[in-house]
């Protein structure tokens, strides 16, 4: 009997894990000019729509002391920047291509997206 219960809860937990991590709803934030991004266990917002051909200032503020998030990489814009804890770090980008561009932590564990329209 206990084996059936454990199996049942096992399956439910796996489904929950799948739902929790892979099926989250992602909101896109529209930004123009300046956008503040909070770095704390991930990026908030992590899906940002920015205008094409205009300079957008991304202001990162890291509140997470974990070394994982100490760097932010915008590979398509060739930026790798150290984010000083509890301070604002500004990164200016001027997208010359439309599309979706990933930004991530230095080790590629945490991700965010810039959508250039």
């Amino acid at each position, binding site marked *: 009997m206990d084996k059936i219960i454990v199996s049942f809860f096992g399956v439910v937990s796996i489904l929950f*894990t799948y739902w929790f991590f892979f099926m989250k709803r992602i909101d896109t934030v529209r930004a123009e000019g300046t956008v503040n991004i909070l770095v704390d*266990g991930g990026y908030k917002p992590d899906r940002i729509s920015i205008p094409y051909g205009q300079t957008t200032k991304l202001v990162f503020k890291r509140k997470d002391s974990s*070394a994982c998030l100490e760097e932010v990489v915008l*590979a398509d814009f060739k930026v790798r920047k150290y984010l000083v804890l509890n301070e604002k770090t500004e990164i200016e980008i001027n997208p010359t291509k439309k599309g979706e561009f990933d930004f991530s932590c230095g080790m590629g564990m945490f991700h965010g997206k810039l959508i250039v329209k």
Partner: protein
Amino acid sequence: MKNMNKQTFAIKGMHCASCVYINEKALKAIPGVTEAVINLTNGKATLSSEAPIEGNKIIDAVKSVGYQAMIENNGTLDEKIKVEKAKELKDLRVKVTVSLFLGSLIVWGSFPGIMEVAPTLFKNYYFQFVLAAIVQFWAGYDLYKAAISSLRHRIANMDTLVVIGTTVAFLYSIFVTFFPKFFMNLKIEAMPYFDVSTVIIGLILLGRYLEAKAKAGTGEAIKKLIGLQAKTARVIRNNKEIDISIDEVVTGDLIRVRPGEKIPVDGVIIEGESAIDESMVTGESMPSSKYKGDTVIGATMNKSGSFVYKATKVGKDTLLAQIIKLVEEAQGSKAPIQRLADIISSYFVPIVIMLAISTFVGWYVFGSNPVFINAMLRSIAVLIIACPCAMGLATPTAIMVGTGIGAQHGILIKDAESLETAHKVNTIIFDKTGTLTNGKPEVTDVLLKSNIKDQISKIQIKNQEGLIQLAASIEKLSEHPLGEAIVKKAEKEKLQLIKVNRFKSLTGKGVEGVVNEKKVYVGRLLKSDSFADGENLKKQGKTVVYVYIEDKLSGLIAIADTIKESAKEAILTLNKMGIETAMITGDNAQTANAIAKQVGIRQENVFAEVMPEDKEKKVRELQSREQRFLFRTVAMVGDGINDAPALAAADVGIAMGSGTDVAIEAAGITLVNKNLMSVVSAIQLSKKTMKTIKLNLFWAFAYNVVLIPVAMIGWISPILASGAMAFSSISVVTNSLLLKKAKI
């Protein structure tokens, strides 16, 4: 005195020697400061310490004696990062030491074989609980914080795995400690696993500590480049020489540099000469001689002479600043090979959690007794052994080290993609003029017509020097580049030029004039004459000019663009590496073939008489030529003056020499020096970096692919798993650092 750290800042309000003394004393009293020196004349203090001192501590110390330390915004970004990193490492060191010490006490009191000789207190579960709780919530505080804030974003990472794994072990142990009867009724031995939770946290933090230390080494190159910058410059203003900070130097400033001093900014020598060691910027090991009119590069070292130069580029426009920017950008880019690792790591952690749940269920349903404990320990091992960090570190650390050592050798890589593509290059096209050759025509042969001595003339041409002297005297008045080569030759031989009368330039033919009352003509061969040696020289790709005295052919001068010393060796090495070499030029076929023969490029790979605008087409043509059933990966090497489109069209464009901005923009790799062996070094650097990346990725993937199933089967204990996991990410970073030792 290891890792000496220096901080310089101004102190306001000092006016006497005793102020200096008071402030120095106050600064020395700050814990960690080994030395404090104050210069009263400029009001600046320099602190030496083992680790960077936080700005507010300095401000407070100076304030306590009644003065004001001018520390801007707590220092520069670099200093802030340094302070933050130092603090992080110190915190980790303390936490690792404490948790491993407490963990070892618990292990002593609970591990069969050694627990028998342990003091009774260590075997007490309540005592173990207290120790484990300290490790779990104090040492593991940051892990919890990071895991919880990630979970709020519905993201799982490394910390999530460690937190889940150790929390399960810790909570289970608490239950066993406080409600042993419950487990005994279930016929489960009431034994806690505090050793598992503490040692795992200890080892994971140890791994983090070592990783952070090693990772600091990957970005060292750029710090070294920044450190190359001179701090002050001795400028001449109002006829006075004054020392000013490098930030205050403006273009047009006259700067004096003495032997053994660093050249502050880029500029042009206007007085004096010297030998300058430029190796730190160009990678060229031989010092180069510089004279009036030559350019000097900031941050290079003046060896012998003293000179004055005019600043032409300052601040972010200097070559060094450009190099730093380029390296920073390259380190911010991603290699295509990283894409797969990125995709995998974004799904990795949730999948590991699901695997851990499956492991628990599997062992609970099908495993042997005690099923619950077996199932729990095995699923913890799965959570702990999984190492997404190694995958995340594999590529960027190698790119950081690779681009860094490139810069130290004068090889500037624009982005990680270029570095990756360069290792696949199997065909390299060289531009001829200025790339394979020096780009400056030089006199190579001087021949006298045999009957010349019979001439009875006021102008006695006794030897080759005489012919050069005569030709140079006339050519001095022309503005032709070939003429310039003859004049240069005369200057080199220290020949006195003779006065020329009635100079005339004969369009399309040559020049003539009267020297010592005799008519002298220098130019093309006149129709009625022939000169067999001249034809031979032409076949070697040289340009031949003939010298006539009183309408009689007297001799000839052959002029050619000379090949670079490094050209032959570079082509030979590339060919040995299995790379096909080709040459492209706007010059005629004869000259092109002659140069190709000298450097060792095969005749069929010579593309002559190609107009600048067609070079790009040729590159594309070569790219579409198959080689062993695969399309070629083509690199184009040029100076970028008229071949920027070709550089951009090639799979990897390599711009040589200090390069124009256009060339740097178009090229994937820029070589600061003009030594062709740098092309070989660039390819080798790419090959070695890619080898490191591939080994790292293989290790990171194989590790997880092999060890996660091993943990699921139950062949590995959670503690061993945490050791393996810590070792895994450190080994990847260490492997990247080994790249520094590679010979390129």
